[in-house]
């Protein structure tokens, strides 16, 4: 009987003390970004049916950059639009 009580007391003590243990501690590295990761824009699917957006190949950075360059020239350079008229 005494032995059983001892085992139960030990188990309860172990369960209570477990809450005092350290959980996964994040080690802070000064000078390095500590937040959540972000998704690159080219990893998104290109919108369909928008004539102002040149579709790019999903995951292909160069094709997204090309799409952005085309939009910059066509949308913000009125000389391009005047020449095309």
């Amino acid at each position, binding site marked *: 009987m005494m032995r059983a009580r001892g085992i139960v007391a030990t188990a309860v003590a172990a369960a209570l003390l477990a809450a005092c243990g350290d959980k996964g501690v994040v080690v802070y590295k000064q000078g390095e970004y500590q937040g*959540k990761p972000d*998704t690159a824009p080219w990893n998104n699917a290109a919108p369909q049916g928008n004539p102002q957006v040149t579709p790019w190949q999903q995951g292909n950075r160069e094709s997204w950059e090309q799409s952005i360059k085309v939009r910059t020239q066509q949308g913000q350079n009125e000389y391009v639009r005047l020449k095309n008229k």
Partner: protein
Amino acid sequence: MARMKFLCDAERCIECNGCVTACKNVNEVPWGVNRRRVVTLNDGVPGEKSISVACMHCSDAPCMAVCPVDCFYKTPEGVVLHDKDLCIGCGYCFYACPFGAPQFPQDGAFGLRGKMDKCTFCAGGPEKDGSAEEFAKYGQNRLAEGKLPACAEMCSTKALLGGDADVVADIFRERVVARGKGVELWGWATAYGKPEAAKPAAPAAAKGDK
């Protein structure tokens, strides 16, 4: 490799505040926070100049350097963003920024200002692209939709240019050649470095020559 930059053509800006309105509208920026604003130099004097100012997404961003919790990061396309979940609202970035870009939703001392808010180049933040969480914290992610910042795309006189640095520089160069004046680039050297800084230093022996 693309690098996103803003350029404000002071010869064209008419102080209409269309860029400010576009930013507020697209990103649903709260009352009291202005991610972008128009500054007029020599207001009322003939020859006054207006420029549209926001975060310039500096090449060597001082806000990133001073942040005590390192909540800033730079995307591969050169946009300076931050994680609002990490920001403690200390305001160091506000003091470090030469453009006054970081904004806070409330006035007050340390700990009472709330999370810092600034221009994201319409690139959202570290949440799932296009999600409700991303919009609530950072605004619209237009780059992920193949679009450019709303302020630049909405500008009625195309004074504010935003996009790939090479293309933006080409557009500006073409304008300057066409009009024959207005070569000044407000804030460009501060944000992206002076051209002479890239030149090699003069030889040491030349210093003594008279």
